[in-house]
């Protein structure tokens, strides 16, 4: 599943990711466009026991969450 959370302000990217984890939609790709959102989604993923891989795509970040 891909979540496009670009431009969404705190804590929307986290809520969207959390809902997807709850619904067991892993592996998950989350697109964000600020460092803050990237850090927050990474922290959520790690707290939920996911492996988090981060790729930088120009102005955006792609976080891949998996178990």
């Amino acid at each position: 599943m891909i979540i496009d959370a670009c431009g969404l302000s705190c804590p929307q990217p986290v809520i969207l990711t959390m809902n997807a984890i709850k619904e067991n939609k892993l592996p998950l790709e989350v697109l964000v466009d600020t460092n803050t959102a990237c850090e927050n989604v990474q922290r959520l993923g790690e707290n939920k026991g996911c492996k988090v891989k981060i790729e930088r795509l120009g102005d955006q970040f792609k976080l891949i969450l998996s178990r």
Partner: protein
Amino acid sequence: MSVKPVSNFLASKWGLVSTGVVIGIIAAFLQKLGNPANMGICVACFERDIAGALGLHRVAVVQYIRPEIIGFVLGSMITAFIFRDFKARHGSAPIVRFILGAFAMIGALAFLGCPWRAMLRLAGGDINAVIGIIGLIIGIAVGDQFLKYGYNLGRSYKTYNVAGFVMPAIMAGFLLLLIFAPKFGENAPIFFSEKGPGSMHAPLMISLAAGLIIGFIAQRTRFCTMGSIRDVLLVGDLHLMRGVIALIVSAFITNLILGQFHVGIAGQPIAHSNYLWNLLGMVLAGLAFVLAGGCPGRQLILSGEGDCDAAVFVLGMITGAAFSHNFGLAGSPDKIVDGAVTVGGISQFGMVAVITGIVVCLIIGFTMREKI
């Protein structure tokens, strides 16, 4: 020199704790050096003082261009540049954010303080702060429900870099007005209080330096008082809460050392002990902060790193402060005359404004939702 180790440390849990400790110590010392009691830092009060200095309201005791606020924004801007975090963005319902800012300020001034000052009042022994913080938690808990059911103000989009500099430029302008204090005509000066809270301030350069330091660490750590409570309630995340607790503890200890801790309810400095309106004022502020995505300090930091929507929220707060004082909506402190305490509070107009604000926030929360 690489900035990565600094960045990694500040993003860690110890980074947050250190941030809280530093802010608590700085705030307590600013009080020692001249800022009003339990008001080392108060974003709401300080923006209200700026509104007064510019003549947007004419309450003579709360007028001063507070360098701390300028420091927050400029410190954040400089830091965002060093760490490549600066990104000009706009377009997420600015008019709604303006209104949320105005009502957040009306709520905060009914209580007489933003969440930062609520923590500092607690650390100074003001028990009324507990009521304010309970109100804040209630407001945030209500806001969290909206977030859970799809509330959001829409996406922001990248814009011209110059747009991101507008708020820092306004702050630089405020600094020039503070330093040169020009007279624009016979009755048109920059207003500086001669008595009352507005006349009480630490030396300019110290206040500015304090603001710059806090701007730096708060930009890096994303320190947010509202966010700390929101994240605990919403996702069980203690990350930001560590910073807030560290702030309260460090300000408390520093106050004890400096002889600034005086526990009590009635007659606390620049505070009133009208429980209901302390509570409801902060319910309104907490709800408005959640709906806008950050406490007033965080909004200043965001406006320094290019977030034009946060800048609009800040301008809303300054406007709200002007309304609050022009129409007598703000809280009046308790008064002690010959040992007898007269409990302060807010006027009937203030009560109507706070309730109106809560209703407006609820309408925004219920209507601005996407299915998720």
